[in-house]
């Protein structure tokens, strides 16, 4: 039965990790780049639309892990949304394949301004190990310029959170 477990959980300490703190220089650098308009409009929350531009699905596993009880993405005011029309951030993973380039551009066009582009994972940064393939254009920047890059193969949920929280704080500050 689920009820005894729920009751126990109400009385026990949360399993959630202590919050991550981004490095100050990352926050400062981002603060300079982001328009003040964003802060006025968005306050302290960001809606994220994830786009897989051709990944091996390793990055997707770690993006999923952001939502588990240990990382608990939503306590920072961050949440994944189902449509680019609701998004402030496009979180792009994977090398940009030729077969996905048009879909990514259409997704960007459907995202209202201001929108920030985050390239997560080595492949999204510059194509990663798939750089130079006939089927791959390179990193996300081959289609749209990222505002923030989060390297790693795949980046850990903690690294992704650091990047996203930095974006949030730079935006709010």
């Amino acid at each position, binding site marked *: 039965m689920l009820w005894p477990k729920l009751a126990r959980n109400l009385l026990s300490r949360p399993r959630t990790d202590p919050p991550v703190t981004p490095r100050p220089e990352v926050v400062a650098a981002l603060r300079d780049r982001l328009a003040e308009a964003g802060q006025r409009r968005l306050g302290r929350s960001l809606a994220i639309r994830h786009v897989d531009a051709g990944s091996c699905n390793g990055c997707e*596993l770690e993006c999923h892990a952001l939502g588990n009880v240990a990382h608990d993405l939503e306590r920072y005011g961050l949440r994944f949304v189902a449509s680019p029309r609701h998004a402030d951030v496009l979180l792009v993973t994977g090398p940009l394949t030729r077969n*996905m380039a048009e879909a990514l551009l259409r997704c960007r066009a459907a995202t209202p301004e201001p929108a920030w582009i985050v390239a997560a994972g080595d492949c999204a940064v510059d194509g990663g190990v798939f750089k130079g393939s006939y*089927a791959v254009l390179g990193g996300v920047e081959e289609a749209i310029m990222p505002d923030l890059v989060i390297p790693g193969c795949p980046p850990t949920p903690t690294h992704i959170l650091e990047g996203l929280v930095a974006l949030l704080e730079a935006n709010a500050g």
Partner: protein
Amino acid sequence: MTAAALLTTGAPTACAPWPRVVLDRAAWIALRDAPGLDLLALWGAPGFAHAAFLDRAALRVVLASLPAPEGRFPALSPGRPGAVLFERALHDLWRLTPEEAVDARPFLDHGRWPLAGPLSARPAPQAPEAPPMAFLPAEGEGVHQIPVGPIHAGIIEPGHFRFHVQGETIVRLEARLGYTHKGTLSLMLGKSPRAAARFAARLSGDSTVAHSLAFARAAEAAAGVPAPPRAAAIRAAMLELERLHNHLNDLGFIANDAAFAALHAECGWLREGLLRAQHAAFGHRLMMDRVLPGGVAQDLDAAGVAALRGALARIAAALPGLLRIYESHASLQDRMVGTGVIPPALRDAFAPGGVVGRAAGRAFDARVLNGEMAAEAMPLHAAGDVDARWRQRHAEAGIAIARAEALLAALPEGPLALPLPAQGGEGVALVEGFRGECLAWVMLDDGGLIEALYLRDPSWLHWPLLEAAAIGNIVADFPLINKSVNGSYSGVDL
């Protein structure tokens, strides 16, 4: 003609551990309905079509080739529906035309690569304007289409689903894949197995250990150098850990797609504990790039073993409770039981591996073939629906824990890796990943570099079965069915 008789008609090559037989045209055509053989894969090389089968009775892999100097070969799809996607990809990548093929539409090639047939001896210039994808039709009063993707509403790989729907009921579903085609095979050609291993590790990230291990075993077989015992044991333990964290993921996400968040949260928590232990033990949460041709990239120390065993013990203690919660909520059962059924006729026609096959009653696990597990130890929830696939994963998670525990408790001492000699050879391997059997076939040239290869994810046979299982269900149940099958996009897109 029986499998054994067919094989005596051709010239065997020195592929290890199972020879590859070069057949003539008549014997190849006989493969369309040779009894006792299940199709594993069909792929190409310049001037050749290759096929891999499982010989069910002899529990061995059968490799067959047909020279195709004119760029044509008789299709196997007239007798084997599982060959359809392979043949479409074969044409896209190697420009070999399957004669009498059931389906001649492009698959991985969307008309966006600079060259057509990028893996063929002479790629052709791409046609300037690719015709739009022609989806299979469905006709009848009130039938309408729902196009979904390639970008889906969740955190998931890209692919296009075309539903034909009558009211709420799915009449036909077709998945168009290829969006994540990265040219993985082409990047591996001409490299040493060690240098190419990072691409096998990224064929499908969730199966990074399984594909790395299949590739490593095939390269080791080709070079005639088996991995040392300690490396073999660490790799086998990693394979079970990977199976476990993925099964936990699926158990949670299937429940989540039925809006039952508590199981999802609990499975996510248990899985996170395992990933952290894996990070402590191997320096990488998903254990990527830790399996190498010749052995393993790093040792597993006592602290790492202790971290892993701690995580395994916590999961083992929680597993029975997960099943009790699953079984005691009618709202959950109502969504699972009888949903997305893969009927016995389709199971037999496609012979899918892994959880999808076993949960439909097909008793095959590559660990039995490799002597790593007894056939009678394999659970079989044979109903073929979402419920059977959930229960099958739950049962197999328990077995993965027991196997990982046993391996970690008795790691032999010795070297971690052996160098592979720079010499020619050919090897094949079949490794049971969490989705099913991963096949790798590698041919090395005289310098020990990769001359030809193929990596096959079990999802090749799961995607067409997902399309079939969705028919007759309501659209709202599709995410549930899709999650319970959990095909890899990247693994098939190559």
